């Protein structure tokens, strides 16, 4: 029998929590790219994060000073490769603003259709990968990922029929678009978005009835309204934190004022709020595409003569900052022109760069497992962070 008096209690020489520094990344499946977070842990709790970026840096801004206005739009798509249409869009808008080029109505509508299809494709990739990151909580994890990729394929097929490429398009050019839609494309597009709309209900049922999903997202990674603006995060993150601001509504460009849609706003500021905002954005994007297809005007797709040389487009002296509402928020291009065929200076305002810079401010205090959920809810694309 155990003698109570003779048992010895083992005491560890442990005054206070021990801190451990750990690398998450640069090769980490939940980063969706090359991102290294040096996290300082006390037990399971993160107390500090140092974000190391730049692994994918190609110096797009220097590159753009060496490429003409005709050449760079196709390179611009390589900044945010998950939503390639968006960055091309911002670049050509800035050039058009300085030169005061008219864009035909048909081209404006085609741009809107492609930008919104891109938003759906990008959000699908976000939803699938984010839910897979949270793994076992969602019935094996990979189910919803495969569902989302299945639907994203349909949109990539549409883009392939339109421009011949599936990931990096080169669809935009200064003055209009490079291609018009082929015969039968509009009908295929309608069928595709009808199908995706019905599938979105399915995803919501899968996720919002799942107690584990709610537990992992609600109250996790909260961003206050003030902090959101102070850091300059944009898009679904900003609207998830209670700021009613959408460039398509507040500063309409490319005929967005013609379409009837609503801007979702959530006030909680947590991962779940960002999820809710993006789920409504799916449906609003579909509504915009339907209206644009219904009212697509006839006419030319570009106001500029066909390109015969790379230095054909000349932009007068001046500067402009043009921005579009991308899937991840405000994507802007600040161009300073000296009157030649190439920009004197071009600055990318990448939505992911600003969004990611909030991570060191919101992660401390969370558990390690939540880091993955928060990082996924921010939806960074490292091509755009590092440029």
């Amino acid at each position: 029998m155990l003698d109570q008096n003779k048992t010895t209690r083992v005491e560890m020489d442990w005054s206070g929590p021990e801190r451990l520094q750990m690398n998450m990344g640069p090769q980490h499946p939940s980063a969706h790219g090359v991102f290294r977070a040096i996290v300082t842990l006390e037990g399971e709790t993160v107390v500090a994060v140092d974000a190391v970026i730049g692994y994918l840096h190609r110096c797009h801004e220097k590159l753009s000073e060496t490429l003409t206005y005709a050449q760079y739009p196709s390179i611009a798509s390589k900044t945010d490769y998950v939503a390639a249409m968006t960055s091309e869009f911002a670049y050509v808008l800035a050039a058009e603003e300085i030169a005061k080029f008219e864009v035909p109505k048909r081209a404006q509508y085609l741009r809107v259709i492609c930008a919104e299809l891109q938003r759906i494709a990008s959000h699908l990739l976000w939803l699938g990968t984010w839910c897979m990151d949270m793994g076992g909580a969602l019935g094996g994890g990979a189910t919803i990922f495969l569902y989302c990729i299945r639907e994203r394929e349909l949109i990539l097929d549409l883009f392939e029929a339109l421009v011949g490429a599936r990931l990096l398009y080169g669809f935009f050019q200064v003055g209009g678009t490079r291609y018009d839609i082929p015969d039968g494309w509009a009908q295929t597009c309608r069928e595709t978005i009808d199908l995706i709309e019905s599938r979105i209900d399915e995803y919501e049922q899968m996720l919002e009835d799942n107690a584990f999903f709610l537990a992992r997202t609600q109250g996790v990674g909260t961003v206050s309204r003030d902090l959101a603006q102070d850091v300059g995060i944009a898009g679904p993150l900003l609207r998830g934190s209670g700021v009613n601001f959408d460039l398509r509504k507040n500063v309409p460009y490319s005929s967005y004022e013609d379409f009837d849609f609503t801007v979702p706003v959530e006030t909680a500021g947590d991962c779940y709020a960002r999820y809710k905002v993006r789920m409504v954005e799916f449906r609003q994007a579909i509504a915009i595409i339907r209206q644009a297809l219904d009212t697509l005007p006839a006419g030319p797709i570009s106001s500029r003569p066909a390109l015969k040389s790379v230095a054909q487009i000349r932009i007068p002296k001046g500067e402009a900052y043009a921005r579009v509402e991308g899937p991840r928020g405000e994507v802007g291009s600040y161009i300073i022109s000296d009157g030649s065929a190439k920009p004197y200076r071009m600055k990318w305002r990448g939505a992911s760069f600003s969004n990611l810079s909030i991570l060191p401010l919101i992660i401390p205090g969370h558990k390690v497992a939540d880091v993955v959920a928060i990082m996924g809810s921010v939806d960074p694309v490292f091509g755009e962070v590092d440029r």
Partner: protein
Amino acid sequence: MNAEQARASLASTFGVDVAAGVPMVVTVAPARWEELGRFAKDTVGCRFFNFLTAVDWKEQGLEVVARVDNLDDNVALMLKTKLGPGVTTCPSLTPVYQGANWMERECFDMFGIHFDNHPDLRRILLEDTWEGHPLLKSYAVDTPHPPYR
């Protein structure tokens, strides 16, 4: 504060011409840079920090450009300050806007601008051992850098 009120108060406070337009461009001396940031945030209500960057105007020196927005009243300000030829120091906006932290680090990385009072000024996109600052006009595109050539 609407755009017209913002224009008038900026012009009277800083004694500079502010052209109406979207965005309104305000240029001040580097000594008043942080003060301009505070004024934009607290008085004009531009709480949204959009971006901060720099431009190399060759012999005229570097210029720092920041854009801030008032999302409620749709007022946008483009803040500019010319550092002057050969000058590479600038006051930091990090005490005013937290978003300036990474943007100023990027400016330091790409242009070699030292931001005073920045809490954590080190390279962000390039590695710490990189030589030179690529976005300067004096840095050729094909500058070799070991081990990449």
